[in-house]
């Protein structure tokens, strides 16, 4: 609340707003109420009779106005005679404790308001003392805490260093409340910039405080916006990709004071710039979302650094860069392609991925009724019985491609199993077009229909009229930035290339995608507009792609395609790589953040499933952590009980550098699986991001706990305000309201208005 308003309020209403907020309104009339009401009526009678007698000069409206003004003035006087007052609880001096929490994190060193935020703390709590501390000490026993990544009791400001690498506000409130739980606590006062970066929700902490009636008063230090600053607020990158994949990373850039200016965003991999692009910063308050495209070429854990060169007058330079750890895998991923008839798609898809060491497309092709051919199988027994009939057999693949094979070929269990392959196992499903695919293959209403991103129309294929259209393909706006459709060096070049490609054909008319699905390519031609050519959606844990065309090989064979052109190969490789990019293994390990601080506790979580991808709770799971120094330590992981198949162990890094976590799961003496993940232990940098004073968060904390929000300008009233609380040892004070200046002004104003009106109407 603005100080001017508060002062004006106090002048008119005698007390500060906080008294009204905390007080209970009562009447304490020394005389019976009916007596006072009678006196009021008696006082009102003479002027009423007088006004009614004046005929001719006054209209009925004039009479009503004059009578009303007089009645209101008399009513206010009668109200005052009823002796209105506020009953408000106030603390008993020196019988209550007040917790003072001071933010000791690094962001308090930011100089954004002519002085460092920490200077304000020193001014208030330094050895010279301050009015604030004096007034608080007069009323309360004070207990001081410093907080950043941890919470400490402190005796003086000398113990503050403002070097904490994290701000954990919720944790600080919890600890202070717990430490002061045995004493009469009048409230907590938090001096902070509110730049909480713990990632934890404050809701639980606030609920605890509210249920115990402990108000939290917050003092927001710093500015809510910086004058001149550029910040990479977020980088959205995949955690793991296959070697040689094209990666699309979303980078969010916020700024203040640089509208319309162009900056250069660079991406480095081990000091080598892999991408560089100019970014024009948007209007003030808007965030620029930039898509960065590059190819990952070297296997292993790669630390990609996204950075913008600091401008000369920037307030915080450290927030111009962010690092992302991406695991580049060099392994061969198996994909099953089941084709219901000999088709050239098989030949050209095999050729497209032949040189890709990371993709193994195993093909099962029906060449005649009950006759199958197998290509690129790993061993003689693979798919020897035809299409898989068990989860174990199907779920060994990371993706399934369904060609022109009718739904009736499968048993219902197989159709259901394919749906579960996507939803439960998290596998990728790619459905191609063809005379026996999609609606024309009788898939409407089957379990596979449920997982498809497209709406199947009534089948059009019959003996007399067979749907066929040649389609010129067009990128959708979403497709322009999607990794699957990047077939040239840049998004712009890709869009150009798509426009040049020859038409491909479809026998499956599809024009609608399901809610939540995304369309990357559409096609028009032969009187058809905007047919769906490439669309996908997430279903359960997996991805499903519909590509209802029958001859993508035209992009390889057509006479307009130069022999050296790699569009067909690039498209298929990227499509398949993307399809399997988030498919889980039987054993999956993760940590909450890929960058943690030394001595910062982190939790390794592993999900273990069997070969049918059913959760396993009785596995022996061990995490082998290799430190940057090369030392390896083994940690037994325990089943969490709350979640099936989930195992956890806590780990505290002791040195900076890259940590490898290899998790091995065994069951009944046999290996279930092994997985490897990485994280980086380094100085946390969160304090430099989102470091503006967050008044909205601090207001919320205050409002939801019954406290108030202050700034350095308004904090002088804090000692008085915190007196009014029901928390701790309190007494009730009575505050008279009849003598508020507003009452006097109101009565005088009403009488003066009545007199003025009479004069205006010629009665005076």
């Amino acid at each position: 609340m603005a100080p001017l308003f508060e002062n004006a309020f106090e002048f008119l209403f005698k007390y500060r707003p906080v008294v009204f907020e905390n007080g209970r309104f009562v009447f304490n009339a020394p005389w019976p109420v009916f007596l006072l009401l009678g006196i009021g009526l008696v006082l009102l009678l003479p002027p009423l009779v007088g006004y009614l007698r004046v005929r001719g000069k006054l209209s009925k409206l004039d009479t009503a106005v004059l009578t009303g003004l007089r009645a209101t003035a008399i009513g206010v006087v009668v109200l005052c005679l009823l002796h209105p007052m506020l009953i408000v609880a106030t603390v008993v001096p020196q019988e209550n404790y007040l917790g003072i929490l001071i933010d000791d994190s690094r962001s308090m060193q930011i100089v954004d308001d002519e002085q460092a935020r920490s200077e304000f703390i020193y001014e208030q709590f330094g050895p010279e003392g301050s009015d604030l501390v004096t007034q608080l000490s007069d009323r309360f026993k004070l207990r001081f805490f410093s907080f950043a990544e941890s919470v400490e009791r402190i005796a003086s400001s000398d113990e503050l260093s403002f070097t904490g690498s994290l701000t954990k506000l919720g944790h600080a409130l919890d600890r202070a409340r717990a430490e002061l739980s045995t004493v009469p606590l009048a409230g907590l006062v938090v001096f902070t910039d509110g730049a909480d970066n713990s990632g934890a929700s404050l809701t639980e902490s606030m609920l605890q405080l509210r249920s115990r009636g402990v108000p939290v008063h917050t003092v927001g230090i710093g500015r809510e916006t910086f004058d001149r600053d550029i910040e990479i607020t977020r980088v959205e990158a995949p955690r793991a990709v296959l070697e040689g994949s094209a990666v699309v990373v979303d980078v969010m850039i916020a700024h203040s004071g640089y509208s319309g200016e162009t900056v250069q965003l660079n991406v480095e991999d081990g000091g080598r710039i892999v991408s560089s692009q100019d970014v024009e910063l948007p209007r003030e308050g808007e965030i620029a979302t930039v898509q960065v495209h590059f190819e990952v070429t070297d296997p292993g854990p790669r630390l990609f650094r996204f950075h913008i060169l600091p401008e000369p007058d920037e307030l915080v330079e450290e927030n111009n860069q962010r690092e992302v750890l991406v695991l580049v895998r060099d392994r061969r991923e198996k994909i099953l392609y089941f084709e219901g008839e000999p088709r050239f798609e098989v030949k050209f898809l095999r050729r497209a991925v032949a040189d890709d060491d990371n993709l193994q497309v195993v093909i099962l092709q029906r060449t005649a009724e009950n006759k199958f051919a197998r290509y690129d199988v790993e061993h003689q027994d693979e798919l020897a019985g035809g299409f898989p009939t068990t989860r174990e057999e199907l779920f060994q693949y990371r993706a399934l491609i369904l060609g022109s094979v009718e739904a009736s070929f499968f048993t219902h269990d197989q159709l259901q199993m394919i749906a579960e392959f996507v939803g439960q196992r998290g596998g990728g499903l790619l459905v191609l077009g063809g005379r026996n695919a999609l609606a024309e293959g009788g898939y409407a209403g089957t379990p596979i229909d449920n997982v498809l991103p497209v709406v199947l129309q009534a089948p059009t294929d019959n003996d007399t009229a067979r749907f066929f259209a040649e389609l010129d393909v067009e990128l959708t706006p979403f497709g322009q930035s999607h990794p699957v459709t990047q077939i040239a060096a840049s998004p712009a070049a890709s869009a150009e290339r798509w426009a040049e490609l020859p038409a491909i054909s479809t026998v499956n008319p599809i024009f609608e995608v399901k809610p939540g699905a995304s369309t990357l390519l559409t096609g028009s031609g032969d009187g058809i507009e905007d047919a769906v050519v490439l669309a996908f959606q997430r279903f359960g844990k997996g991805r499903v792609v519909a590509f209802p065309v029958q001859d993508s090989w035209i992009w390889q064979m057509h006479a307009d395609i130069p022999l050296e052109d790699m569009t067909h190969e690039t498209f298929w490789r990227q499509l398949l790589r993307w399809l399997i990019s988030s498919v889980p293994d039987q054993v999956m390990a993760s940590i909450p953040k890929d960058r943690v601080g030394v001595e910062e506790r982190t939790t390794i979580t592993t999900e273990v499933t069997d070969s049918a991808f059913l959760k396993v709770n009785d596995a022996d799971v061990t995490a082998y952590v290799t430190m940057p120094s090369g030392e390896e330590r083994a940690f037994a992981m325990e089943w969490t009980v709350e979640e099936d198949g989930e195992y956890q162990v806590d780990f505290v890094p002791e040195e900076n550098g890259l940590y490898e976590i290899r998790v091995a799961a065994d069951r009944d003496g046999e290996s279930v699986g092994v997985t490897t993940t990485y994280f980086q232990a380094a100085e946390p940098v969160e304090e430099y991001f989102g470091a503006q004073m967050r008044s909205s968060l601090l207001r919320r904390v205050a409002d939801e706990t019954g406290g108030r929000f202050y700034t350095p300008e308004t904090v002088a009233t804090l000692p008085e305000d915190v007196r009014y609380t029901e928390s701790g040892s309190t007494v009730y004070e009575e505050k008279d309201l009849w003598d508020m200046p507003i009452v006097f002004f109101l009565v005088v104003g009403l009488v003066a208005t009545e007199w003025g009106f009479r004069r205006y109407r010629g009665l005076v």
Partner: protein
Amino acid sequence: MKLRQRPAILLLIGATGMGASVWGFSTEYGSAGGQQPVLNGTQLEARDSKRGREFYFTRAMYSGYGRRYASWSVDFPKADVQFLFGVRRLTNIDAYEFENPVRLDDPNLRRFPFLYALEVGRMALSPAEIQGLRSYLLAGGFLVIDDFWDMDQWQNFEYEISQVLPEYRIVDIPMDHPLLSAFYEIDEILQVPNRSLAAAGGRTWECWTRCDPVLRGIFDEHNRLMVVINWNTDLGDAWEWVEQPWYPWKYSNFAYKLGVNMIVYGMSH
């Protein structure tokens, strides 16, 4: 999971398939071509619904020095159509039922990744045809050569194909090559005689002296088969006269088997 197909299936083709069709002569391709099918209304409709099929038995129209007629069109189109009838019955390939001749210098050639050419002993390719066939093969097209005999015709073909693919060599296709098990298991290369020799029932070769059938090919640098060469044999005649009781089923059976294998292989490798 391959099933061995019984030879009786091939007899069925002859008995119930094109045996029901009527063949006559047409001038659609000029002096080229032999017997044309006389089609009824439904067949004409099917012939017109050409677009959107998966497979077209595409015959290469090439320049040559045939005296009476263009050598590319020997057995055309009856052999093509009869063979397609068998392909459609024996496999589940979505094959267009009729012939599909395309010039080698036609850019549309690259829309048909399977190509059949015969009588290449009389082939004399123009520069445009050389370029068209070369780009076709290097882009991923698959060429089957049939019905040329003896050394002089071999030399002519070898010269022509060396113009098209000078950097690749012609080599023997071994009997354990996947081509020979792509659909049927083939363990012997038979010499398929032309109709006259088959009807006579004597020798099967058209060479001056006895010659053996040879299966050769041209592989790309990834060891993928681009060209299959059937030398000293005449698969086309076996397809063309399969419905005739005097044509020995032994040869038509083999010709269909090898033909189907070449198509299935060409569509998957």
